[in-house]
């Protein structure tokens, strides 16, 4: 009996892994964004205009993974001068740390769809574990390209000081809420 279970486990597991489809992130519909408190007055928003990456998704086998690389210099808050400052050593130091990366380590499932993504977020060369709450996963044939497409929204809150981004604390908020709107098309 034990042997049978082992055989079944070994047999099924690779199959479910093999069924996971690979998706390439569509940079035109993937915009990591953030919100942060500004001097206690308001919540300021910004986004990154250039993101690449890939994910795998297999709802039947309940397996998924995601890797995202953000071009830190593509930060866009709608104000050129402020964006220059955010790129400077005071904040993201993009000349030395051109990329912000996220790599999943575990995906939690709530029913048929992922509900959380645990992973390593790297900012300024500092890697911290974070957990993203997944708020929606949708798949279907793209109406224009006719390619199989999946997308999801996820968000988390981190402390920028944990990554060594300390400038302006505490006047400029420490808590940084990150939103990931990700869309990718299945690799052919």
């Amino acid at each position: 009996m034990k042997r049978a279970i082992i055989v079944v486990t070994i047999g099924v597991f690779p199959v479910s892994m093999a069924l996971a489809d690979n998706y390439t992130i569509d940079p035109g519909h993937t915009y990591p964004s953030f919100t942060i408190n500004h001097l206690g007055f308001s919540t300021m928003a910004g986004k990154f205009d250039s993101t690449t990456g890939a994910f795998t998704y297999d709802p039947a086998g309940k397996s998924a993974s995601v890797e995202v690389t953000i071009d830190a210099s593509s930060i866009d808050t709608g104000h050129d001068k402020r964006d220059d400052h955010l790129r400077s050593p005071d904040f993201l130091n993009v000349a030395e740390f051109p990329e912000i990366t996220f790599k999943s380590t575990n995906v939690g499932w709530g029913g048929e769809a992922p509900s959380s993504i645990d992973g390593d977020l790297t900012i300024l060369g500092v890697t911290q574990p974070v957990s993203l709450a997944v708020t929606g996963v949708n798949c279907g044939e793209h109406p224009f390209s006719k390619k199989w497409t999946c997308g999801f929204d996820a968000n988390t809150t981190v402390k920028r000081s944990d990554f060594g981004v300390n400038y302006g604390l505490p006047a400029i908020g420490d808590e940084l809420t990150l939103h990931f709107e990700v869309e990718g098309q299945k690799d052919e």
Partner: protein
Amino acid sequence: MQDILSRPEVQGALPFVVALVVGLLVKPTGAVWSAAGMIAGFIAGVLLINGLQFEPMTATRKIIVCGVSAAVIGAFFSTGKKAGKLVSLLLVAISVAAYVWVFWTLLKRADGNKMIMLVGGGVYTFWLVAVVHGLRKEPLQAGAASVALGAGTGFAAILGASALLGQLGLTIASASGAVLLLALIWSDMRIEPLMTFPVALVVGLLGTGGMVLAKLPWIALLVLAFVPLAARIPLPDGYPRILKTILWVGAAMVVAALAILSVWLLMEESGY
């Protein structure tokens, strides 16, 4: 307490006070050691601005490490009789090593304009090290050059690059101001490479950092390169020390102000 220490006026004044107190305390141990007050003031400023956090080891944090290390090297070359030109060459050689270490992350992937900026920043840094070293036997002129280089780099960086780099420049200006005051009071005080080397190296690296890590216009560095020359203006021997100091500081500060003005004019409105 933290609120008080984070106030700009406190961060600006503390390096001056620390440099003055340390300079006064160590003077009896030898005329050369009062310049160590500048290093103490710089370290006090760094602790307020950066704390003791050195991870990740960014270029800015490497500049801080270079500043303290340069003070130790400068102290070695400040004692005993050593050949001036040989020391100058050695200090420039050490500066080259420090420069490569600080900007290695950028150097290894730089191309085109970035490489030109890095080479230009190197020339600027090595020029400052060599020329400010030439002022080591002239405490008032070395002090004037240090104050103006620190202030010029600091304000230019705040306007055109990064507040962090700017604060470090102003820390140099503040601490150097205290040493200049002591040099004005004590005519036997010596500055030597103990102060000239770390000041020139740090200011050079900060200016280059502002240019390659942010958007400090290169023209600002070109103008700042003339600050030590302004502090070398020959004055009649008969002038009182206080008048000489005012004139040297004034000349150096005019050049520094031109650098700041150039950044002001080239940068768009900065408020946001």
